[in-house]
């Protein structure tokens, strides 16, 4: 049960943090239409996070109210989060952001496929709805890369960005503790960390570049140095008056 809760939280936390970080580009993407599209995608990811937090709350026998979801999303001690360094990382420029967007959505697709037909019924039930939206996320990321990789200057910036992100890539497919049991009980098809070679192959094909050999699973027990500043940005308004009723 702990492993299942951790698996769901890991997915929810990654969706939450990537959604938040995408939406931080509101108003500053290179052009207006991209601004709308990218923040929409961020909004979708936040929606997926909320669905997954609801599943975690069900496991805790708690009603999935907005307050309960907020409290899971914003108010846990950092060691109770199960997010990855890849989604905690704050990108330095648009190139890193676009590369992370593409890599994340590839990893996300592999994770949803991994829970398709899950024996944990509530998880299996949200797959179709979420993956229908993910098609557009990947179309968006691929269309941008199609355009930018064809340009020498843009392409070299993207490949540099990929090199900088490469060490973090394996963390997004890190397993939670106890995944072997989840495989045995058919909650997931295979351990999350065994999806990494597929992700690396997809990156190879897309960028024509093999990223540094992936490190073995790093687990999801500790947070990277980007986490605390990110959480403080996310809680900025909330922290002005924690007792306020919204």
């Amino acid at each position: 049960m702990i492993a299942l809760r951790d698996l769901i939280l890991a997915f929810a936390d990654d969706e939450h943090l990537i959604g938040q970080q995408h939406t931080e580009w509101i108003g500053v993407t290179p052009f207006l239409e991209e601004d709308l599209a990218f923040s929409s995608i961020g909004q979708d990811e936040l929606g997926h996070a909320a669905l997954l937090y609801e599943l975690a709350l069900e496991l805790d026998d708690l009603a999935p109210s907005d307050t309960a979801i907020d409290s899971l999303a914003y108010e846990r001690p950092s060691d109770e989060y199960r997010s990855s360094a890849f989604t905690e990382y704050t990108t330095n420029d648009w190139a890193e952001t676009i590369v992370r967007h593409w890599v994340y959505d590839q990893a996300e697709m592999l994770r949803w496929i991994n829970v398709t037909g899950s024996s944990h019924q509530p998880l299996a039930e949200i797959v179709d709805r979420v993956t229908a939206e993910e098609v557009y996320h990947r179309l968006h990321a691929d269309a941008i890369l199609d355009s930018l990789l064809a340009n020498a200057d843009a392409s070299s910036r993207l490949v540099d960005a990929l090199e900088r992100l490469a060490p973090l890539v394996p963390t997004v497919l890190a397993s939670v503790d106890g995944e072997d049991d989840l495989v045995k009980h058919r909650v997931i098809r295979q351990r999350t960390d065994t999806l990494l070679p597929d992700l690396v192959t997809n990156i190879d094909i897309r960028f024509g570049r093999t990223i540094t050999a992936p490190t073995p699973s790093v687990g999801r027990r500790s947070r990277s140095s980007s986490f605390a500043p990110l959480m403080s940005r996310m809680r900025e308004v909330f922290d002005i008056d924690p007792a306020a009723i919204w």
Partner: protein
Amino acid sequence: MATYEVFLKKDGRDEFRHAGALDAANDDLALVLARESYLRRAEGNRLWLVRRDNLIIAGEDFVEPNTDKPHRHHDGSAVAAHRKATRESKT
């Protein structure tokens, strides 16, 4: 980058209507951006994009001479007035 004109149509009898325009680097991106910029709240069920480059655009003076042809605005009033005058002259 190219500019695309966006047309939307709702299911039913309504025709495609011009909704606006957007800039995009390629056709795929134009579709995604149109979906997020003009269809966020299901404003239409069908979407057309036309690259502005592909529009055939008439010059203003090509159209202008037709602004001064009142005889083509026949709403029937001239005929009605004529018939009325004829009718009244007979009585």
